[in-house]
């Protein structure tokens, strides 16, 4: 009995906090826009009894999903989101890997401190940190002032409100998610493996590519998914740091919801986004599982 309760807890949790909201969104995505409260129809009228329920289901249709295929905006936005997510994942990996490597190679007594420094930004609101970047990157911002002062540039660089700023923001924000799993993989790495590789004729660099990188692969994969999955749906960073040319599905979703007041289409966009994310999430799960098995 206690066992059953223990098992039930996470399922009830999932049901209440994931499945039920998802079905509500799914239901709205099958509804039609209406100028009413709430702004869609039909709504379930239980006072009508069975007929009401039948009437309710009779009015649901896939019209909104068809709509998504008719306008190229949506798939372009999905594609552009995936592209931005991929590029920023690669950038985050390029920045994060050396940091994780450095941490794992640092003297044992420094590591907790380094770890804390990586986690430290989480203590401040994400929004405030993104706003701080606006202050750094703007035309009259600290970066330009510094570069002008050093004489490297003579006119301020336009970074804020460009794609570059979006990538800077994403890399900065998601860096800890990349560093931590890679660090965990590298820290477990037996130092004698590197020595063995060198002993067998590898230069330092070869040993890194042939041994360190393959062995930290589970960490790299975990980190990449942890960055890529949320970035695909990212809304705040592109809207604050990006220019208007930054097309991302999060922004399209926002517009459907707020500008068009079209909750049904917005929900359909969200459902499709979820389906797109299911692929990497399943791959990620499989990677985690493989890692657990290998660890046993």
């Amino acid at each position: 009995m206690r066992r059953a309760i223990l098992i039930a807890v996470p399922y009830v949790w999932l049901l209440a906090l994931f499945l039920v909201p998802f079905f509500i969104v799914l239901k709205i995505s099958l509804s039609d826009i209406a100028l009413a409260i709430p702004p869609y129809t039909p709504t379930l009228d239980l006072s009508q009894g069975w007929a009401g329920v039948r009437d309710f289901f009779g009015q649901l249709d896939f019209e909104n999903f068809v709509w998504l295929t008719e306008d190229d905006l949506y798939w372009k936005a999905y594609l552009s989101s995936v592209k931005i997510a991929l590029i920023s994942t690669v950038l985050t990996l390029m920045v994060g890997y050396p940091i994780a490597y450095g941490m794992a190679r640092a003297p044992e007594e420094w590591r907790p401190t380094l770890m804390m420094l990586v986690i430290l930004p989480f203590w401040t609101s994400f929004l405030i940190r993104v706003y701080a970047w606006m202050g750094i990157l703007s035309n009259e911002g600290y970066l330009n002032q510094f570069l002008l002062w050093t004489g490297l540039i003579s006119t301020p660089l336009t970074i804020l409100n460009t794609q570059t700023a979006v990538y800077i923001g994403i890399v900065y924000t998601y860096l800890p998610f990349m560093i931590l799993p890679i660090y965990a993989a590298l820290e477990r790495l037996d130092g004698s493996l590197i020595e063995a590789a060198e002993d067998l004729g590898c230069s330092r660099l070869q040993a890194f590519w042939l041994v360190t990188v393959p062995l930290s692969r589970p960490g790299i994969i975990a980190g990449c998914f942890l960055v890529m999955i949320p970035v695909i749906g990212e809304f705040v960073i592109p809207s604050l740091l990006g220019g208007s040319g930054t097309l991302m599905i999060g922004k399209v979703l926002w517009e459907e919801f707020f500008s068009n007041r079209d909750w049904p289409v917005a929900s359909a966009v969200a459902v499709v986004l979820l389906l797109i994310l299911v692929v990497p999430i399943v791959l990620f799960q499989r990677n985690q599982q493989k890692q657990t098995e290998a660890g046993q």
Partner: protein
Amino acid sequence: MTIKTLTLTAVIATGVSAAYADEVRVYNWSDYIDEELLSKFEEETGLTLVYDVFDSNEVLETKMLAGGSGYDVVVPTGTFLQRQIQAGAFQKLDAEKLSNAGNLWDVIQDRTAGYDPDNAYSINYMWGTTGLGVNVGKVREILGDDVQLNSMDLVLKPENMEKLAACGVHFLDAPTEIFPMVLQYLGEDPDSHDTDVIGKTEEVLAAVRPHIQKFHSSEYINALANGDICVAVGWSGDILQARDRAAEADNGVEIEYHPFAEGSLMWFDQMAIPVDAPNPEGAHKFLNFILDANNMAAASNYVYYANGNKASQEFLEEDVIGDPAIYPDDATMENLYITTPYPAKTQRVVTRLWTKIKSGT
């Protein structure tokens, strides 16, 4: 509520309304009132005032359409108000409880009636125009001293925009503001709901689009004040705020607000009571308090926006009532126009067009 009807539901109902009876919840734009007025209201009425703020009509509208927001007074802009009235989000005002309603300014009343027929659901709080925020020094430096700072040419002529691009130009991220503006520029009806007519704006905007750094509806306040950008198409009050911030910071940035010489869009922020307001009684008390000439004048003197309260004008300070950027002169007033909300189908086309213009997709 009488003791006779003391059923279970009534117990719950009384319980709830008792909790709300001495509390008024107001949801207004950020930086939009003199906070001393809030405590003054509490002192005068003995009610507790819960005052929350928002910064976009869309956020407010979503709360209204979702229902059960728990607010007693909200402040949507005219076009949004109209649609929300149609959705059934508001309750009619009880004229008997608004003894100060006589203070309202007929000039404004006539126009807001376009959104709220007979002004049955709302009273005007503030109003303003959409126009140009200009960093005077930088724009003159780039385009010469004799540049016209109040013309749409500044932001809709590619040759001007090309030169201003490096310095930075922001547009409001609001198709309902920009399309009417461009239609006015083209000599069309700014309030046109004909999608073909609206489509004519695309060519004009596409030509200047590469030189627009960002479409955003609030960032330009800081960006202008800090000197990060040169020109913004924005709301009068916001740009005046930027002007004051720059002056306070004493950073050598001089900002001016100009309504368009070609004619500016006029907007109205209206106070209304949600249909499911927990305390409509208190809400009316708050509206009546705001309608008081002295209180309204205090608010305008604080936020530098024009209001729809004729009686308050004698209490306004000279730098408010005398500033043509806030209270435009008669000639400019003539030129101002209003728009009405798009029907849902048109709205979709407009949003789509807007996305296409912004992102090139």
